[in-house]
Every structure is written in structure tokens, then in C-alpha cells.
């Protein structure tokens, strides 16, 4: 019994799974996470998940891009190699803006991809970490930390009552399917 790390309740129906979450919460059993093959409205609020901070990350990446572009153009066009283009001053800000804009978008896009990889452990070459393979296909899985919630039979009962088709006991956190 002590080797079990996670109890997984596998549901075939999202409404039953939402019901299962309610049941567990009513009995003060903390839920580790829920895995679903599709987005479900209102599940973040129910699980009390904090809002993603990816927008802040995006802003930081974007502003870095803006600054890099400005610094590069300023160095090239104003400090290092002044070129007379149509009699304009070297520091002609409107000319800078398209490049600043493009680099903002580029940095933001790459930064967001990297952030996404980092937060989901999806780096190329790394085996994906999944608790239950069928959560990527047709099952809605509630994962309960078995170490924190000792009364496993109670959890089993609650999940079964809510309509779980299958209860699994994982001795490792993630299964690898390499």
C-alpha cells in the first residue's frame, strides 16, 4: 500500500468527472490534478487553479524584443555607420518602428513557445510525462495524491460512486511510454 503514489479515477464522461471533483472536495480530499482530452469550461474555477501568468511572460518577452531592436538599429544607424538616406536625420524614429514591431512579435512568439515547452516539459527529445495515457484519448482522469490522503478505500468509493469506470494506482508519478 505504501508504494502507491497516486490514485487515478478514470471517467468516460466529463459531467460525471465534474461530479467526482465535487464529491472529493466535499470530503476534503485534495485533488492533485485533472487530465482531460479536451478543454472543459469552468474547471479552473472549480479546482481553484490560479490564473496563468503567461501574459506577463509574453509582455516581458515582447518588451525585450522592442528594446533589442531599438538598440541594434540605434547602434547601426546612429552610432556606428551613419548613412544619408533621402536627407533624413540618422535618428529617424518612424523608420525604426516597423523593425521594432517585428522584433517584438518575434521575441514574443519564440519566448512563448519556450515558456510553453518549459512549463509542460515538452522539450524535443524528452519523453512526454503522462499519468494515464487514456487521458490523451477518451478518458477524463482525476489524480489524487495517495501520500497526502491516506484513506484510499474512501477515495475509491467516492470515485466509484461518481461514476469512475476504472481506478488505477500509480506507483510512479508518471508512466513513460517510450
Amino acid at each position: 500500500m505504501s508504494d502507491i503514489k497516486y490514485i487515478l479515477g478514470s471517467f468516460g464522461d466529463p459531467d460525471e468527472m465534474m461530479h467526482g471533483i465535487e464529491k472529493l472536495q466535499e470530503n476534503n480530499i485534495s485533488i492533485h490534478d485533472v487530465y482531460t482530452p479536451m478543454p472543459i469550461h469552468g474547471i479552473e474555477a472549480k479546482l481553484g487553479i490560479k490564473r496563468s501568468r503567461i501574459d506577463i511572460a509574453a509582455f516581458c518577452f515582447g518588451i525585450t524584443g522592442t528594446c533589442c531592436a531599438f538598440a541594434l538599429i540605434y547602434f547601426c544607424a546612429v552610432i556606428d555607420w551613419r548613412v544619408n538616406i533621402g536627407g533624413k536625420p540618422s535618428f529617424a524614429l518612424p523608420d525604426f518602428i516597423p523593425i521594432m514591431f517585428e522584433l517584438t512579435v518575434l521575441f514574443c512568439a519564440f519566448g512563448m513557445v519556450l515558456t510553453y515547452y518549459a512549463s509542460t516539459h515538452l522539450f524535443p527529445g524528452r519523453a512526454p510525462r503522462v499519468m494515464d495515457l487514456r487521458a490523451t484519448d477518451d478518458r477524463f482522469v482525476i489524480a489524487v495524491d495517495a501520500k497526502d490522503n491516506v484513506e484510499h478505500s474512501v477515495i475509491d468509493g467516492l470515485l466509484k460512486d461518481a461514476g469512475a469506470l476504472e481506478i488505477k494506482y500509480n506507483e510512479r508519478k508518471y508512466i513513460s511510454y517510450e
Partner: protein
Amino acid sequence: MGTHNINFSEQFEFTGKVKTLSIVGIILGVAAVGYGFFAGDKIMHERTFANLLLMAYYFACVCMSGTFFLAVQYVAQAGWSASILRVPQAMAKTLPIAAVILVVVISAGLYTHNLYHHWHADGLTDPNSPNYDSLIAGKSVFLNVPFFLGRQVVFLGIYSIFSIMFVKFSYNEDLAGGLNSYRKSFKNACIFLVIYGFTTPIFAFDTVMSLEAHWFSTMFGWYNFAAMWVSSLATIAIILILLRRAGYMQWVNNSHLHNLGQFIFGFSIFWTYVWFAQFLLIYYANMPEETVYFYKRFEYYKFWFFLNLAMNFLAPVLLLMDRDNKRTDAKLLFVSIVVLLGHWVDYYQMIMPGAVEEGHNGFGIIEIGTAIGFVGLFTFTVLTSLSKKPLIAKNHPLLQESLHHQL
């Protein structure tokens, strides 16, 4: 709020303070225009006509973009907006009135030589006349009075017919139910969008750009399209928020506002993009026949030039970037009002330098009064048509999606 306690026959009552204020606004507007015509000289008349053109154009643009909003929602088969469609429908229903006012202002200005005198004056196209202008003569195939007025009437007429059709389909849907009206709306929306896309740039070239007929910019049409579309979205947001505060349309939730906020945010940036694309090319190429446009605005309208960018770009970008701000009705209302005023400034510095002689422009009773008058007229006409039918299109096939809309 659940869907079971929605009153599907809820109707807006247009009475009390709002009605009084809108009528007072119209009277103030008429008084200001009358002051401009009777108290002033020729220059004052030009300025009054420029203001009338500005506000009539703004009024027509907001209403026809309401129709555009409807068409976009039908073509995209958007579900989120199904429960708020009565507001753009009320705007679309007002378009015929706005169109008539715009055509009257334009023809009156044209025939009294107060507007478009740059290409409409005696001898401009006659090679033997001292007034002969070879550029205008070259453009006279396109810029002549019958063709010009014909285009205005045809374009505004087509937009008005489609507006009335969309509104009628929706009312029929209320009575008959079923998918027939939706299918018809979809089909006509496709046709309308193609026509609208090709004709609005020409409409903007005619109405505004031809005030300075020597100058031209191919970006101008899209620049105006962006302006009218974003100001219309801001108007829809304002009407929705105020209706919700007055106790109507309680099914409109923060997610609907969030969507509108995203639209306002996105299209403000689109407006800036097009504005900047036009500015940058002219700045970079530095050709005298093109730079003359920005020279005038930078020399005589510097304050308005920068205020325009501040109100239409900086304000929405900084204030609507945050998710919570789009969902808070007070903040969205504030930004919508700023954007709406900002596009007045935008149109002001598009129209004034071409319509009024340098040094005679200003900002005073005529500007404020005309604007208030048209706001009153818009409020009166739109709210009157809004009060005629229930506030929800109860048989719209995607209504449930809209009532449960959540972002």
C-alpha cells in the same frame, strides 16, 4: 444567471431623462449650426459645413459599421454575439436616416461651394480659364458632380437596403423560428461583405479624401474603414454597458464585454497600423505632392495630430491590454468613450485642413454644438428603433451558446 429566468419579450422603454437629454442635444446642435450659418461670414459657413460633414459622416459610418458587425457575425457563424445583436440591428436600422442626412449635407455643401470647392469650382477643368487646374482636370472623369453624388447615393443605398434586410430577417425569425432567416442572413451577409469591402474605400475617398483633391493615398480607404469599425464597436460597447446598468439585458455578462473589449483593443491597433503605414510611406518617400497632407496637419494641427494618436492608440493599448480591464464595465466604458472622442479628433484632422482655410479653423461652439447635436440624434434614433422590438432575438439558432458564453 441561468437561462430559465430570462424574459424573452423584454423591451427597452425609451422615456424619461434619456429621451429629454437626447432631444435637448438635438436642439443644441440645431442652435449651434444655426449660429454658424446666421452669425458668421463665408469662412464661418465653411467651418459649419465642415463640422456638419464630419458628424454626418461619423454618424453614417457608425451605423453602417453596425451592419458590418451583423454581417461579420453571420458569416463567421459567431455564437457569442447572438444575444446582443439587437443593438447593432438598431444601429443598422438607423442607417437610412444617417444616409439621407449625409447626402443632404454633401449636396448642400457642394452646391453652395462650401465643401469640395477644391475640385468643384468654375473653370477648374476648362483649359482657357484662369482657374484651370490640370490635376483636377485629369481627375474630372471620376470627380465630377453627377458621378460623385451618384456614387454616394448608390453606396449608401446599397448599405441601407442590406441593413433593412438583416433587421427584417431577424424580426421574421422572432415570429417564425426555424433556420430560414438565419440561412438568408448568412447568404446576404456574404454578398454584403464583398460589396462593402470594395466600396467603403471609394466611399471614404469620395467623402473625405476628395476635400484635398490634389493629394491621394491608397491607404486612406482602409484607414477610414478601421476608424469607422472601431468607433462602431466602441458605440456598441457603450450602449450595452449603459443598458445593463439601467437594468436591461441582464444576460450580457463580462465575457461578452471581454469579446467587445478585445475587438476594440485589436482594431485600435489595426487603426494605428494603417495610420502608420500611410504616414511612414509618405515620410520615407518624401515626395512633395504627398507630404503636403502631413505638412498641413503638422504645422497647423500639431496638438490634434498627437492627441489623435494618444486617444486612439495609447489609451486603448495601455488600458485594455489587461484581461480584467476588458471585463470591468466601468473601465471598458471609459476606454470606449475615449476611443469614440478620439475618432472625432481623427475625423477632425482629416476633414478640417481640407475644408477650412488655414488659420480659420478652431474649436468652439460650432464644433462642440454640432457634435452634441449628432450624438443626441444618434441616441434618439437608435434608442427609438431599439425600443420597438424585444431586446433579444429569441429564435436565433445560436442563442444558447451566447447565453452561456464564457471566456
